[in-house]
């Protein structure tokens, strides 16, 4: 799920950046440091939308660095247990399949794939129903439900299922 929240961060700036472009430098550094990172509480920071406020800088004793508390608004992505999510399949094997939704890696074990779908190995390993009508292979889009999430420093891992109603393949890459 995406959220638009305000976060605060203490940015340390080297004196070489002081001058007319202090604020720009601060913002650039903030973007470089924060965009694309993950935290346990907020999830994955997708993009910074704006700077709300830059506080007064505090000079650190002993070094010339200055610390600015910056309040900024950003869009974060945090998956939740119970959430329904669309993802793209990246790998299919006999244990299940791996899918990706942006920075989130989701694993759907074959225990949580409907029983009528069988694994077919070969050139393009896939899961197919007995009548061949539904196929899950690499680059298929699936709708799945998350049953467990874990947020790491850089990655988010999730466990998903497609065994419930209305879940499964949305888009077959071979037809579109």
């Amino acid at each position: 799920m995406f959220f638009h929240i305000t976060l605060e961060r203490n940015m340390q700036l080297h004196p070489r950046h002081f001058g007319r472009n202090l604020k720009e430098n601060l913002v650039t550094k903030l973007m470089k440091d924060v965009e694309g990172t993950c935290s346990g509480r907020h999830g994955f920071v997708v993009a910074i939308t704006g700077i709300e406020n830059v506080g007064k800088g505090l000079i650190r004793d002993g070094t010339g660095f200055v610390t600015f508390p910056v309040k900024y608004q950003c869009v974060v992505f945090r998956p939740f247990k119970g959430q329904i999510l669309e993802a793209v399949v990246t790998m299919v094997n006999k244990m299940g399949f791996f899918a990706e939704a942006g920075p989130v890696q989701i694993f759907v074990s074959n225990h949580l794939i409907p029983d009528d779908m069988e694994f077919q190995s070969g050139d393009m390993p896939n899961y197919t129903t007995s009548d061949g009508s539904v196929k899950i292979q690499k680059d298929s889009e699936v709708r799945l439900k998350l049953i467990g999430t874990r947020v790491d420093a850089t990655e988010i891992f999730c466990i998903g299922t497609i065994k419930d109603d209305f879940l499964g393949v949305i888009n077959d890459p071979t037809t579109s």
Partner: protein
Amino acid sequence: MTIVSDSPVHSSSSDDFASFLDAELATSTSDSSADEEGDEEENLESKRVKRRKVEVLEILEDVQDSTARVETSKEEAICAHPGSFGGMCIICGQRVAEEAGVAIAYIHKGLRLDSPELVRLRNADMKNKLNQKKLHLILDLDHTLLNSTMLFHMTSEEDYLKSNADSLQDIQNGSLFMLEHMRMMTKLRPYVRQFLKEANEMFEMHIYTMGDKPYAREMAKLLDPGDQYFNDRIISRDDGTQKHQKGLDVVLAEESAVLILDDTENAWTKHRENLILMERYHFFASSCQQFGFRCKSLSLLKSDESDTDGALASVLRVLKRVHSMYFDEDPRDAPSNRDVREFLKSVRKEILQGCRIVFSRVFPTSFPPESHQLWKMAEQLGATCLVEVDSSVTHVVANDPNTEKSKWATNETKYLVHPQWIEATYYLWQRQVEDKYPVNQSKSQ
């Protein structure tokens, strides 16, 4: 407001979106309810409760009816946690102990499976393979299918190779590659493309190398540019469970259906019976040096192993033989009783069947001859080894043509062969012509 709270694995934790929202909203909506709406709300509540009860009963029935492999009940998930991904159980999503089970990291980082699940997967795979009439083949990379060398190890006489390297745009037709970004050159063994193509029809193939993951991936790209043979079955040294040892514990296949092609016996101490030992492929000078050979490498001799007559071609014949023996068994015979190791042994025993061999001054006198490598090789090949000569002996193996036994052999017109005859026969899986391995007066080395 409740979102889907009737899933069998319901539990409220901070992960749960519903409780998160409830918590956030509870602080802001405490003053909005008025008395007139109280009754309606109560009705709604009771209706909602009734609905939830009905839904819950339905789920109970579903669970009891379905042949779900997951055992769950309404109250709590009695989940066996057969595996974990990123520290969470793959069935119920709960946190599990990090180190439980075997890490199958080569498929995806963070994936672990425990023993019952591995057994289940292997059984399912076995059934699948029997239907497809395929077995499993594990291939080593270095000195078995190819030979690599770092650029700074190359001698000046090998510089001509750098300009003769094949294009990386047309991998399918090349065999000598320069990999600048890895600072190495790689030469594929002759016949390897044909070998992989034919083996693919009989086997599901895996790569298992003692190199690191990036190296393994690069080599897989060279051997398999179309990504048809290996998919995600590329095991590198970081994926093994033990240092310096390769094992079948991370392979998702039944041990009785796996054949291994490797040049190093010591890497497979636990699975010697599945191993087909390959003659080492030394193309680059650094490779010969690494093993202490003072002979000239193939790159310096400007030649290469024979295409249709080399090690890979002979091994392919053996693999075809074992495969056909495995699948041509009487269909009434239970498939689970067939073991590829037994077939391998019997194929080997046919090679020198009927030969009776005596060794002359090949083993040190204090050494028990039965434990010598050559003796064991000869016995595996089906020959009978004897200590003393008698009239039934067919071969005498010696280094020196002037020993008593050697002279006896020449007099009785028995075969007098160099020990290399046994080794060549072992590696090429074919009885070698004895005349090609004469015992000459050796110059002192």
